[in-house]
């Protein structure tokens, strides 16, 4: 089947958080407390077991002033961005899952089978984006499913459906990439030199994202890793190092036990 995905165009995100709410509602994601984080308009914090869409608010000082002045918005450049699981082509969470609970669906998305997950937690530190996490006291891990149930019913994922500006676009990944390239070109032409695509390159460290972004600053500003790499890319090297160490251990033991004259 065709690979489906998201293109999140942050240049038209207005920070309404409809995506966060729609996701919680549709997927029955539990409440995770109300905290005032003193992070601009963001009291969600970041993606996790109970947050599958997260709208980031970044206030960049425009010009010399480091602090938003009385002039209000004149002194600040707003960045808003709705983050989500990247549904990587080479997904570390899926690679390291020892039970097969994480699997690749017919839409080429990455989903946890909740009836299989035994809560080993290996996927949590394996994700280069810090997306997936364990839900306490449930004990299992949870993340965006790209609304697998809705996709099977030929529907649009809840977040994209709710987005009032089409900042979140859903569709076949190929179409989205073409659309994103066009949008990037238009923005560059309009003088937005900082615009860039994040995760649209099939040759990056995770083989490209199934859910990619148009950003207006470098990824680090949004708390996104600038050059994410699937950890299992280095796994053959790791197994070779372990084989060397295992041989050294066996050799040390054998040498110690050799009969002495």
């Amino acid at each position: 089947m065709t690979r489906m995905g998201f293109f999140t165009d942050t240049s038209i995100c207005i920070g309404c958080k409809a995506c966060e709410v729609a996701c919680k509602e549709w997927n029955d994601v539990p409440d995770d407390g109300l905290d005032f984080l003193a992070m601009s308009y963001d009291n969600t914090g970041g993606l996790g077991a109970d947050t599958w869409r997260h709208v980031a608010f970044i206030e960049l000082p425009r010009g010399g002033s480091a602090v938003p002045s009385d002039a209000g918005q004149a002194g600040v450049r707003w960045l808003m961005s709705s983050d989500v699981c990247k549904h990587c082509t080479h997904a570390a969470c899926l690679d390291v899952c020892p039970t097969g609970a994480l699997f690749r669906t017919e839409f080429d998305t990455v989903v946890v089978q909740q009836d299989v997950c035994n809560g080993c937690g290996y996927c949590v530190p394996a994700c280069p984006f810090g997306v997936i996490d364990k839900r306490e006291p449930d004990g299992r891990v949870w993340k965006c499913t790209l609304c697998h149930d809705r996709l099977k019913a030929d529907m649009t994922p809840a977040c994209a459906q709710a987005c009032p500006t089409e900042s979140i676009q859903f569709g076949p990944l190929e179409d989205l990439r073409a659309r994103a390239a066009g949008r990037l070109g238009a923005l560059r032409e309009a003088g937005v030199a900082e615009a860039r695509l994040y995760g649209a390159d099939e040759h990056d460290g995770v083989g490209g994202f199934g859910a990619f972004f148009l950003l207006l600053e470098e990824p680090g500003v949004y708390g996104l890793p600038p050059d994410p790499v699937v950890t299992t890319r280095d796994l053959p090297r790791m197994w070779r190092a372990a084989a060397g160490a295992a041989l050294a251990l066996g050799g040390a033991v054998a040498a110690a036990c050799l009969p002495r004259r």
Partner: protein
Amino acid sequence: MTSGYYGRPVLKAPVWKPAIAWYFFTGGLAGASSSLALAARLAGNHRLARSALVASAVGIAVSGPLLVVDLGRPARFLNMLRVAKPTSPMSVGSWLLAVFGPASAAAAASELTGRVPRLGRIGAAAAGGLGPAVATYTAVLVADTAIPAWHESHRELPFIFAGSAAASAAGAALAFTAVDAAAPARRLAVTGAALELGAFRAMEWRLGDLAGPYRDGTAGKLAKAAEATTAAGALLVSVAGRRRPTAVAAGALLCAGSALVRFSVFRAGFESAADPAATIAPQRRRAAAASDGRELPSTS
């Protein structure tokens, strides 16, 4: 801005509890002990083989519950054997333990009861052969994550774990074997300690800026304690390992040092994951180096 988004971590910290750090120690002790038992048996040193077989069985018997209690859904622990995945070091480890555990238990039970000697020999051979893999796969387990202090030390970690496992197996054997049969354990104690300490230093050197967690904070304190304890144990073995009381003391020091070095590595992962700069800064340098020479970097 390497502080990222309001200084929040880019990565999620592991959800593993200290039981897993203890397992790294008990699993290493069990793995290296079963190999020591096999080598001692082949060399005709049956008293050393006996104590090492028991140490292996005790180590692995403790390991199982440590691993199960850490699961979010302990009742589903058998799901670990639902698939076999070489891309998952935890899957590989589960299958290793599924063979190693019963083999080690059979070998020790046969040794102590004198029954089914043939099964005991098969178990001892299997456990002895798999022992080095059981002792070192856990290094790959932590390295195969996105956490910089773990992932970037993937070359040295297996050697640290191998040395630590050898030192602990030698330590346990020293504590529970008569001194006239323990000469191999004394030699293994020194080589194991040297490997553990040397590989740890090599790891710190290679990590450079990312070695912070191994030097500062809780993990740094644990690393310093591990180094002092392991070195003291090895020194004591060298100068007074032929006297029973000092051999026991040295064995305890070596086991403590081995456990402490695993705790340090375990803890360092949490501290590394919590630091957004450790994730973002090296990647930003890498991305900048890769985009040099390209005209307009449209992606980054």
